[in-house]
């Protein structure tokens, strides 16, 4: 079986590995790079627990080969918080009780992060549609929707504050 | 799963009957099927490869014939096991031939097919489609072969 040199930048850090053709991206992230925040929940591309950002696009990493991601910028849950603390969306999940067992949460966060990047003020229906590829068994989704709304409001507030400062 | 087919062949009933009880010819008319060994007068070893697009399934097993010459009715019991945990298939099929005219015969096939394993599980009626198609191809080949013969 062919081996391939793969270089990916994960959360801003470049990693090179030699991998088999068939290695799944999620296993590269979890097993080779030891970033275990990205989870595996199904085999059939339904649950979204493995969602990561590939060049900014939320992607189910169990349905992508590691070689396909060669050269890509990958974002995982470990990259969401920075020196200033958790992101607005992470904070929203905590404030609105958008998680229980926490297993689907990293995938939800990555999908939610991409949604907010594309749509700063999503409606409830848009949020529900956006996370429809991410299954959650604990929360009933109500509080996940609220968490995204919380983050949108917080980010809008921060933007407004920033704009005022610029003025 | 029960499949029932009735079709007419433009050939004498004797010829149709001779075809239906010849394992080699039957296998040749079924795409993917082959007879590999004769175990005794009525039992054969064989295989069946099902290829549908990128999907591959191969079964190996035995075929046993139980013929009722007087009524021109053949009971065939084929059972096979899939490779790599694909599951098992079991088919009990009775085919009977009735002459409709000198050069025309009617074949009635009643098959009970039971398939276990992932192909049956995927819940999309895939096996029904595949077996329907196989029967259709079989009857076409049968019709052609005999008409040509």
């Amino acid at each position: 079986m062919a081996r391939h040199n793969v270089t990916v930048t994960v959360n801003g850090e470049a990693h090179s590995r030699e991998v088999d053709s068939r290695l799944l991206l999620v296993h590269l992230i979890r097993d080779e790079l030891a970033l275990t925040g990205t989870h595996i929940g199904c085999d059939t591309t339904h649950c979204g627990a493995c969602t990561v950002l590939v060049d900014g696009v939320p992607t189910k990493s169990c349905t992508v080969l590691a070689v396909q991601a060669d050269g890509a910028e990958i974002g995982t849950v470990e990259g969401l918080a920075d020196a200033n603390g958790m992101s607005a969306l992470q904070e929203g999940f905590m404030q609105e009780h958008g998680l229980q067992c926490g297993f689907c949460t990293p995938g939800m966060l990555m999908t939610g992060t991409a949604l907010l990047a594309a749509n700063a003020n999503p409606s409830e229906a848009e949020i529900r549609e956006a996370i429809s590829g991410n299954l959650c068994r604990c929360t009933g989704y109500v509080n996940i929707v609220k968490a995204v709304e919380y983050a949108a409001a917080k980010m809008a507030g921060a933007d407004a504050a920033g704009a005022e400062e610029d003025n | 799963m029960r499949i029932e087919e009735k079709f007419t062949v433009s050939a004498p009933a004797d010829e149709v009957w001779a075809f239906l009880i010849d394992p080699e010819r039957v296998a040749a008319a079924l795409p993917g099927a082959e007879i590999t060994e004769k175990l005794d007068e009525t039992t054969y070893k064989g295989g069946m490869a099902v290829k549908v697009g990128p999907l591959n399934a191969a079964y190996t097993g035995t075929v046993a014939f139980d013929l009722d010459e007087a009524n021109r009715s053949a009971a065939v019991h084929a059972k096979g096991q899939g490779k790599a945990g694909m599951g098992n298939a079991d088919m009990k099929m009775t085919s009977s031939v009735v002459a409709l005219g000198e050069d025309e015969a009617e074949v009635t096939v009643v098959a009970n097919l039971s398939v276990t394993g992932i192909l049956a599980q995927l819940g999309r009626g895939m096996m029904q489609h595949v077996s329907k198609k196989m029967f259709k191809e079989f009857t076409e080949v049968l019709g052609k072969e005999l008409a040509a013969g």
Partner: protein
Amino acid sequence: MIPPQFDYHAPGSLEEALALLGELDDAKVMSGGQSLLPMLKLRLATPANIVDIGRIPGLDSITESGGFLRIGALVTETALEENATVAERYPILLDTAKVIADPLVRNRATICGNVAHGDPANDHPATMLALRAQMVATGPDGERTIGVDDFFHGLFMTSLDPGEILTEIRIPAPGERSGGAYLKLERKVGDYAVAGVAVQLELDKNGKVTQAGIGLTNLGFAPIRASAAEKALTGATLLEQGGLMGAIAKVRGIFSGGMDADEVIAAAAQAAADATDPVADRRGSVRYKRNMARVLTARAIRQALSRAGG
């Protein structure tokens, strides 16, 4: 679930890809991989080689030119959903893309992949039938164009040769008064259709149907064109017309004993149902699925009419 072993190839050009397909034994083309990878993980498919066309430049554009909408091999469902031309002029395509799998899968899944997979449960094939699309297959001897009616042969089977790649789908540009809709009944988001119906209608200036295209999803061994239903609609005037012309048409209709619009639509819907050959599974019985084909066809016709600008 772990895929079986295979060798992966990522050609940088179409020529290179075609050469690989020519050289390699048992090679399978992959674009978005959203159908193929799950099949590999289930070990239902075990190709020795995978040729990933995802890195070939120039295959990811949607353009409208020469009387066609041209969808390249690597155009994703998401790209289709976000395309302004599609939203404005081909709403049936937008309808279709939006009900495929889920948004994350659509970020990688391609329209051409959806079609080339040859799965009668996939949604685009029916829409392509309704739109009378053309499939552009590129092989070692160059391009050939396959009409959609000659493309689908059955479960996972198409007219594509093993050495060919579906490089483009061409959809005839819609006439001035035309409209289409795709309706899918699904058990939940992300599921294959219980039944799906694509309807594309072209009207003349009097509102008469000049051309009808109807395709059906997951209702048989292959995507189905509901020809009798199309015929039932063609030539019929299904829109209420205002003013004097409308009144005259109505009176004429009454005297000629012709069917009114509701009756025509009902007849077409029934004809679509009659064209189906579904199997019973967890999505429903044969009878239920046939009925759904009827109900959805009627609804899709009405929506197509209203989009045709009533």
